């Protein structure tokens, strides 16, 4: 039997809400609870213990925005990658982000929230 091929996917969730979309404050417990529950269907997630600090240029304001994120690594079969994208689309709204960095087997994409898709 051929082994089921899994793709390593990783994404970053900033520890604070976007200060342009929202108020820049740390998330509430319910947001992390929601993510725990949403990721359980993928059968296992690893979070490196150190938070990650970085920055990005806000496309709307042109401003350099520093952020601190939690990284998640999840191995998913190819057919489930869209499910992960859907979770991250919702996560944009739950965590008040314009987009979320997602790396799928080394290929990077930015998953936008539903409110930003038509812009």
């Amino acid at each position, binding site marked *: 039997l051929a082994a089921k091929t899994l793709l390593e996917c990783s994404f970053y969730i900033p*520890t604070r809400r976007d200060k342009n979309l929202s108020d820049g404050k*740390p998330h509430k*417990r319910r947001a*992390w609870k929601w993510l*725990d529950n949403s990721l359980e269907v993928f059968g296992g997630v690893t979070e490196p*213990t150190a*938070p990650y600090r970085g920055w990005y240029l806000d496309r709307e304001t042109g401003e350099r925005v520093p952020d601190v994120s939690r990284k998640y690594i999840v191995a998913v079969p190819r057919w489930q990658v869209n499910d992960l994208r859907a979770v991250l689309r919702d996560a944009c*709204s739950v965590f008040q982000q314009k987009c979320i960095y997602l790396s799928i087997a080394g290929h990077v994409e930015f998953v936008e929230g539903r409110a930003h898709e038509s812009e």
Partner: protein
Amino acid sequence: MKANDVYIDLDGDPIPLGKLDAEERRLVAQLRRRAATNPDWNAFDNYWTAALSAFYLPRGLSRRAVTQTIPWQIAQDLSGRIGIAAGYIQPPGPFDDLDEMVLFKFGSLRAFCKATSIPEKELGRFMAGRGDLSLNTLLKGLEAIGYRLRITPAAPAVKMKQPRSPRRRRTARPA
């Protein structure tokens, strides 16, 4: 109810332990012992999510059903306490129940506002701490979906500290 038959969560709400079997009680005790060692927040989340899956999946529960169990709720609460103490999570606030209802019962602010007739923009600004919402608007909206406001004693405050300096991530991402 005996004190060891109930777990009091961060909101001061009791989670009954009476229906747990002996193994589940041991699991909860393990989670509480681990949380009491003041672990790293991410390390604790890695631990409890794996521990609960390893415990319940062999019992025939679906992954979705695992998230509905009492030990899962307790682990999330313990994780919340650790995250708050580390400065990564906002301490409990007065509108957490409303926030949870919007997300978990309605799925989105839009759906909640449609059901309650509360203007979405107004509620969105209020929930983000950027505006006020009239108490009457909220009361009427809640009444429309069969809810009401209740005043309860506050749970003890949880201290919040600044997170430790994290590892640098150089990757930039567009907004």
